[in-house]
């Protein structure tokens, strides 16, 4: 009962992006996927959420294959992906962005309830419901993107660089929020980050990727304290 990725390979045309990726995440765990720019982290998430096709390998969520499915099908199976760079639609209002995550369930009362829960988590969004999403600050946009995913009531949340382009103090808040909400909602989270230290601090396990291959995987606290890894990949 978990996310299992085995021998996953993905390419961008002739260029190989991921080669034989293996790792697994237990239900309720937070896994941080760490690696430098261009290591293949974003490609990994895009493949798992159905935006990109794999060339070989398997990925299962709760023992059912997820490769080769469309993102909207996977949302129905409880997998929501917050893509890189504040995945909100700036032309829509805050409220419309949130409603979007609930349309597939077809029950307006359900969506309204889910939105209320999100507003409880992010009161700032509640104050800005009718504003256009492009009036939000970077941190608020990230909250909105996560909030939209939560309205879909996911079991597995794929988060791509939520700290990207945010001020250090906001980054800290975002990581705290992720940590709180995954405990509160019992979410399984796959968190892709360049911000290695902050991500590993709230993670149960870490997966370190370099040039399209997994170079280390294990409990997050062990990875943090491994001097060789720190020097080579974590950069501090």
């Amino acid at each position, binding site marked *: 009962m978990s996310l299992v990725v085995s021998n996953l390979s993905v390419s961008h045309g002739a260029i190989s992006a991921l080669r034989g990726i293996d790792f697994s995440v237990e239900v309720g765990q937070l896994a941080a996927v760490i690696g430098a720019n261009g290591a293949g982290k974003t490609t990994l998430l895009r493949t798992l959420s159905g*935006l990109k096709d794999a060339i070989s390998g398997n990925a299962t969520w709760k023992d059912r294959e997820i490769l080769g499915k469309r*993102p*909207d099908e996977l*949302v129905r199976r409880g997998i929501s992906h917050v*893509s890189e760079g504040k995945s909100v639609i700036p*032309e*829509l209002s805050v409220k419309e962005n949130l409603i979007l*995550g609930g349309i*597939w369930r077809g029950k307006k009362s359900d969506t309204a309830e889910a939105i209320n829960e999100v507003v409880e988590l992010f009161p700032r969004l509640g104050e800005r419901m009718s504003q256009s999403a492009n009036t939000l600050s970077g941190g608020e946009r990230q909250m909105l993107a996560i909030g939209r*995913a939560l309205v879909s009531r996911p079991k597995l949340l794929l988060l791509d660089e939520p700290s990207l382009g945010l001020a250090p103090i906001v980054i800290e808040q975002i990581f705290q929020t992720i940590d709180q909400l995954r405990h509160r909602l019992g979410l399984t989270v796959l968190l892709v980050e360049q911000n290695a230290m902050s991500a590993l601090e709230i993670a149960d396990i870490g997966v370190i990727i370099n040039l399209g291959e997994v170079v280390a995987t294990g409990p997050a606290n062990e990875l943090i304290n491994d001097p060789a890894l720190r020097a080579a990949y974590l950069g501090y």
Partner: protein
Amino acid sequence: MQKALETLLIGLSTGSIYALMSLALVLVWRSTRVINFAQAGQAMFSTYIGFEIATRSQIFWLGLLFAIVAGALLGAGVDYFFMRVLFKHANSGPALVVAPVIATLGLLGLIRSIVGLTWGGEFKSLTAPASKNGFTFGEVTIPFSPLDSLTIITVAVILIILALLFQRTNLGLALRASAYSPEIAQLAGIRTARTRTIGWAIAGGVGGVAGMLVTSYNFLTPYSLDLLLVFGFIAAVIGGLESMVGAVIGALVLGIGLTIILNYVGTSLVFIGGFSVLLLVLLIKPDGIMARGKVRRG
């Protein structure tokens, strides 16, 4: 003063029909990034269906209803059977940009031939739902007719329905989201391919209304809606191609502008006027009259 008012009213009535065609083009462009030249053919086919029903039943509005349904089905069919397949095969490079547009041209020719084979090329005349003779006030008859006012009202009703659909319903939200960002819409659980097909259906239905309205003024032939496509396209470009409100405003501006030329300058200059407006807008405000500082690019 009176002539100015008449020009304005007739311009509004002409422009409101352009607005429907312009909207149909914008709806497809926003969701699919294709300039749908086949829209003229789709509207024409729908109008022939509407014409048959209206002529047999002697009820214009029943014909209009059938034209909407036929247009919607045809629009959905074009997306489902042509565009989806096309995008599956042409997914990169120049083929992706050119192939769909060429395909819509091919489709226009195909529909025209099928209509020609079925109905022949002769001029068909539809009984208009209201008089084309101008309103009379005492001794004075103005060019603005009951049919013109009915056209404006019909278009206004359609626009209100569309505005409510797009702004107030989940389907409308899904349509807008899929147009702005198909990827995020899909990640939010929207079935974007299906949503796009619905967008094509709405565009097709709206085109059918435009065809029926034009045909209540003029004869129907396999070529009679080509001008509507041209002016609808110019209006869409004036409005910036992206914006539904822009499409309507662009069409009204164009309709009034062309009527001014018609009434004050002369018939022969209407075309020159239409294309001059198009060129001026493209040279001065290439993103259309609705563009504010920053515009989302394709």
